[in-house]
């Protein structure tokens, strides 16, 4: 009786066995990597806005505090997008005839709001409150990155649950004094491992990780 399988069939069987295993593993890995990638999270993506507003210019060059425009960040869940009136406080005098600011003037003149595109967009099934984070010593920079170096606003972090829990589990690694909330490029005066636990104690920060804290 002739042999059914050639000698090469041994190799072929091994290759196909391990091939299938690595293919399945690779697909799972691909799904995990893709799910965290900037393509899905829209991180590091510049978004077209009605006006190419530069945080770099307004924060670094002009030294305007975050809360001059984002007024409700300390009192409300929503940090607040400034009304056109806030822009016109300065721009009725400064660069008052620049063509790039025409949409602002048109909005103010015609009483038509500006339509900005949201950069930091949490899913609708997540409850997020800015005021409590600010109150507990979470700096703007911790989540929003170096806004003072952004000519156009972009999302720096993934804003995924994994990333939220990173801090909710270990708040002492990220907390800063309340006086330094809006500071960009903050460096702790004493090592974070010393000041972190102190502030956690002082501000009464609870490590809230139960589902219903955010998914309410």
């Amino acid at each position, binding site marked *: 009786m002739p042999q059914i399988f050639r000698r090469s069939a041994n190799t072929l069987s091994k290759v196909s066995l391990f091939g299938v295993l690595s293919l399945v593993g690779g697909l799972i890995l691909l799904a995990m990597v893709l799910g965290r990638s900037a393509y899905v999270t*829209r991180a590091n993506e510049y978004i077209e806005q009605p006006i190419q507003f530069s945080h770099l210019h307004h924060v670094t060059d002009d030294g305007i505090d975050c809360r001059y425009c984002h*007024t*409700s960040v300390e009192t409300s*869940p929503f940090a*607040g*997008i400034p*009304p056109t009136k806030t822009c016109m406080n300065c721009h009725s005098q400064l660069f008052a005839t620049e063509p790039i600011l025409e949409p602002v003037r048109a909005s103010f003149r015609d009483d038509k709001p*500006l*339509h900005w*595109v949201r950069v930091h967009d949490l899913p609708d099934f997540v409850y997020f409150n800015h005021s409590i984070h600010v109150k507990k010593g979470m700096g703007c920079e911790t989540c929003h990155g170096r806004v003072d170096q952004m000519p156009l606003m972009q999302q720096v972090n993934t804003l995924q649950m994994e990333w939220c829990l990173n801090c909710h589990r270990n708040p002492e690694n990220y907390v800063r004094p309340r006086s330094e909330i809006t500071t960009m490029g903050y460096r702790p005066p004493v090592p974070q491992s010393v000041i972190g636990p102190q502030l956690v104690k002082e501000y009464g920060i609870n490590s809230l990780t139960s589902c219903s804290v955010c998914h309410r």
Partner: protein
Amino acid sequence: MNQRPDIEALRARLDGTRGREYWRSLEALSGTPEFKEFLHREFPQNASEWLDPVGRRGFLKLMSASLALAGVSACTRQPPEELVPYVRQPEEIVPGKPLFYATAMPMNGVGMGILVESHEGRPTKIEGNPDHPSSRGATDLSRRRPSLASTTRTARRR
């Protein structure tokens, strides 16, 4: 199968038979084409729809495939969302927080004291005003919701 069987025809059919003859119904005995068609459709083992397994299997395959792939439709990026701030923000409003107004609405000719929750100018909830001397926080349930709906409609009409 409502038409009455032709008795004369049945008699004629049974005329030449001998011995025992059994039938379930007069319709079965008559053996008309309509009855045969009815029988053909009534019982699954004979039904014409079941004689074509390819179509049914193909249908089931398609259904299971679309069911399995339905979850994949969740794997999308979030659509872009707009932020539309005020042009001139009213003084009392804090974005993201509701305002409460103490007001009154007529009910049976009497003013009913109510508190209205308003989100950026949109009324969302009407409650009784506990400080109102006559109602002390009570509201008429049947009146409360229609009144909210009417305010919304007024707002939309503008």
